[in-house]
Each structure stands twice: as structure tokens, then as C-alpha cells.
């Protein structure tokens, strides 16, 4: 901006000349006051005043010219820039809109989202970068899916491969027990321990398999019209001996005239047995456990409640997560898999139902399953 520099220089020269002129006039007035050569002093004062007037005339005309020049330059520059920007913006708008739209699709999970690369080099670079990023995301998603599949396959295969040796161990231990009369008490007890542990391993394998299937979306149910009360009776019957062994009371209460539910009988029974097993193992001896089957609006509700020690709030919040278990001492004594409730939740949800838990330390626990009843139009009352 040469114009501006010149303008500033002119202003500086003007200021300097004016200052010098004032200084001369002041010196002349001082001499006049002292009475030194008054005529010369008066002449100097007058000449300095007219000199400053001339300087002012000169600077105002030069400034105006320069300001005009600078102003015109600025206007021309701005107009040019504005025109340039308008052109730039219109040629960038389309690719940028495409990018915004593709980003939206990508964020929404459409990993096929790409943009056309063309136009200005800046937007083309941006477009290429976007496409490379989308490509990378897609590749990683593919790898992740493949890893998930490999994990599922691994669990299924491992569960399968572990079953053969487990079958042998359990089978031969059972064979030994068939000859119980030839074993001394210590030997018989040893075999019982082996059998207990094979049963625990089997439970763990079944749970792991269920979870792997659930993760792979392959946990399937075969629902048929079912009497929930009958399932509860069967579960109670299966568990009766375990409750008796710990001198616990187990009571079943069934509301009359319940509608049927659509249920995979084995799977809902599995859920109920799981809830009863937890109550049996976590409650002290002589505790009371109740199973109640009732109707609640369009649902059939199955409550499994106990007057046991209850569940602390921090554990209650995570109780349906896999490997979430009570405190370490308790779980060592109980020896479950920590998977039962997670599987129960998956199974109940597959039936379109819900499962929840209410508890407070010292006040027992209630686990509640709600399963949709078959609509009253095709409802068959249970006799």
C-alpha cells in the first residue's frame, strides 16, 4: 500500500514543519517581549504565520488526493476480492454440501458413503481425505465384524470340544458311583466331589454357549402357548430337594384363571430354575422363598422373592450384567457362573418380556418376570 505510506510521510513532514514554525514564532515573541530588535521580531512572527497557512493549504490538498487514491484502491480491491470470493464460494458450495451430506450418512452408519472428487483443488483434497477416512472406517468395521464372528465361532467350538472330555470324566465318575458298595466312604466322597465339579463345568459351558449364541443373535426360542403356572410348578419341583437340604421353606402361590403365555417351555423353566437356584444358594438356611404367578394387565407376572440378606444398591444396578456377582466371599461359597441372570435377561427379552429385581439389604429380594399374555380373543383359560 504505497499510497498509505506516502500519505503518512506527508503528514509527518507537515507536523515537523509546523512545529518548527511555531518554535520560530515563540522565539520571536520572546525577543519582542524583551524589546530586542522589535521590528525584526514582528516580521518573523508574520512570516511564520503565513508559512503555516501555506503548509496547511498544501497538506490538505495533498491529503485529499492521497485519500482519494487510497480510497479508490481499497474499493477496487474489495470489489475484486468480493467478486473472487463469490466465485470461490459458489464453486466450493456444491462439494461442501456433498461432504456435509456424506458425513451425515457416515455418522448414521452408512459406511458406503463417499463423495465425488472434483472441482477446486482444495475441495478435491478434502473430498479425497473424506473418502480415505470412510474407506478406513469400513475396513475396520469389517475387521471388527470378522473378529466378532471368530470369537463366537471360538466359543462355540471350545464349548463343543470341552464337552467330550467332560462327558468321559462325568460318565466314568458315575460308573464308579454305581459300584458304591465296593468303595470306602472316603472314596465315595471323592467321586461325589468329581461329579459335583463336572456338573458345575457343564453349567458353565451351557451358560457360555448361550451367551455366545445370544451375542451372535443365534439364541433362538420356540414359543408355544404355555401355562405359566405349570412351568412354575415344574421349576419348584425340580428345585425342591435343594431347598429341603438347606431347610428352606419354598412356597408356590398361583392366581386362578390365568391366561396362557407364548413361551419356549424349556427356556422359561431354565430362567425360573436359575432364579430359584440363586435364592437357594444366596439365602441362609431356614430362609423363606416364595414363587407367585399372577396377572398384571396384559402380562403374566412371575415373582421369585425371598427373605434373605438382600442385595446392596451398588450391586443391584449391575446384577443382570454378565459375570456380575455378589461380594467375593459369598460367590466363592455359592460357586455359580455369574452368567445366569445375564442369560435369563436375554431369554425373557426374546419372549418380549421384562425381568427386574427389587431389593434392600436386610429386607430380602424380589425378582419379577413379566411375559405378555396371549390376547384375550384367542385366550384359553387354564383349568
Amino acid at each position: 500500500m504505497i499510497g498509505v505510506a506516502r500519505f503518512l510521510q506527508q503528514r509527518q513532514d507537515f507536523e515537523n514543519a509546523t512545529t518548527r514554525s511555531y518554535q520560530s514564532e515563540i522565539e520571536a515573541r520572546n525577543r519582542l517581549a524583551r524589546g530586542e530588535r522589535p521590528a525584526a521580531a514582528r516580521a518573523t512572527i508574520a512570516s511564520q504565520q503565513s508559512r503555516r497557512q501555506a503548509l496547511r493549504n498544501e497538506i490538505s490538498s495533498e491529503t485529499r488526493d492521497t485519500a482519494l487514491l487510497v480510497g479508490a484502491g481499497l474499493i477496487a480491491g474489495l470489489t475484486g476480492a468480493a467478486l473472487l470470493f463469490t466465485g470461490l464460494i459458489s464453486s466450493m458450495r456444491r462439494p461442501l454440501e456433498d461432504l456435509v451430506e456424506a458425513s451425515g450418512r457416515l455418522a448414521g452408519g452408512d459406511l458406503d458413503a463417499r463423495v465425488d472428487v472434483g472441482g477446486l483443488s482444495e475441495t478435491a483434497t478434502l473430498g479425497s481425505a473424506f473418502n480415505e477416512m470412510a474407506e478406513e472406517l469400513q475396513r475396520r468395521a469389517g475387521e471388527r465384524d470378522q473378529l466378532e464372528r471368530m470369537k463366537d465361532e471360538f466359543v462355540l467350538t471350545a464349548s463343543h470340544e470341552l464337552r467330550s472330555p467332560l462327558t468321559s470324566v462325568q460318565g466314568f465318575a458315575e460308573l464308579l458311583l454305581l459300584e458304591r458298595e465296593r468303595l470306602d466312604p472316603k472314596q465315595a466322597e471323592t467321586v461325589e466331589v468329581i461329579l459335583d465339579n463336572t456338573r458345575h463345568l457343564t453349567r458353565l459351558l451351557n451358560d457360555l454357549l448361550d451367551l455366545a449364541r445370544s451375542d451372535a443373535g443365534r439364541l433362538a426360542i420356540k414359543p408355544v402357548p404355555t401355562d405359566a403356572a405349570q412351568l412354575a410348578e415344574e421349576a419348584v419341583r425340580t428345585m425342591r430337594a435343594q431347598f429341603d437340604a438347606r431347610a428352606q421353606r419354598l412356597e408356590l402361590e398361583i392366581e386362578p384363571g390365568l391366561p396362557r403365555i407364548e413361551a419356549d417351555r424349556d427356556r422359561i423353566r431354565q430362567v425360573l430354575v436359575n432364579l430359584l437356584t440363586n435364592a437357594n444358594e444366596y439365602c441362609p438356611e431356614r430362609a423363606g422363598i416364595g414363587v407367585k404367578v399372577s396377572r398384571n394387565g396384559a402380562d403374566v407376572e412371575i415373582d421369585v422373592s425371598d427373605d434373605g440378606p438382600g442385595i446392596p444398591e451398588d450391586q443391584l444396578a449391575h446384577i443382570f450384567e454378565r459375570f456380575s456377582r455378589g461380594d467375593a466371599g459369598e460367590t466363592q461359597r455359592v460357586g455359580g457362573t455369574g452368567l445366569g441372570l445375564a442369560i435369563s435377561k436375554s431369554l425373557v427379552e426374546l419372549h418380549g418380556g421384562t425381568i427386574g429385581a427389587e431389593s434392600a439389604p436386610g429386607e430380602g429380594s424380589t425378582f419379577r418376570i413379566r411375559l405378555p399374555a396371549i390376547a384375550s380373543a384367542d385366550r384359553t383359560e387354564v383349568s
Partner: protein
Amino acid sequence: MARVLVADDSETILLLLRTRLEMEGHEVETAADGQEVVDAVDVAAATHDIFLLDAMMPHKSGIDALRELRGAGVETPTLIVSAHTDGGNGEDHESLDIAGYVSKPIDFPQLFTLIDELTR
């Protein structure tokens, strides 16, 4: 008493099955894979009352062996022993006329009941 053809690729499981089944009074013949199953069956004479076949065996699985035998007109009742807790796919179940599934580890009292029901 039933004549049982048992197939499993694990020798110890074959020994276990033979021992338990013989203790129940059954007559047992064993096969280590699907091909041995096919070879052991005389299509013309009904040589066995029931097949107890492991679903997964190397070379030829129990399912493949059964498919071959059914194709040859063998109608012997068949139980499939599977490491998985549920049965095979429904298609095989229908087309191969599978009478039931036995999961591992084996619940022997349940297996004996099934054999009795199918060979009565």
C-alpha cells in the same frame, strides 16, 4: 434288550457308552466314524434295533452317514448325540427321521428311557 450301533470318534466315550449300555443288558457294536457306521449296517438284514450316532465326527459325520443309510432305505430309529445342547437344524430332523437328540455330557437314565421307548 436292544442291538445298538454306537458311533463316536472318542475311544473313551465309546468305552463309556459300551459299558453303560451293556450293564443295562444291551448288545453293543461300535464305530469310530460315519464310514464305519455305513460299513457296519447290512441294508438287507435289519442288523440293529437303534443307532446312537455322534453328530460331529471326522471324515464322515453321523448326520452324513445317516443320510446315506436313509437313502439306501434303512429305517432304523436313530438318536443323534450332539455336543450342542439343542438339536441339529429342523431340515435334517424332518428329512432324516431323527427320533431324538442326546446332549453331552450324557444323561444316562434319560438315554436308557429313550432307547426303551424306541425299541419296544
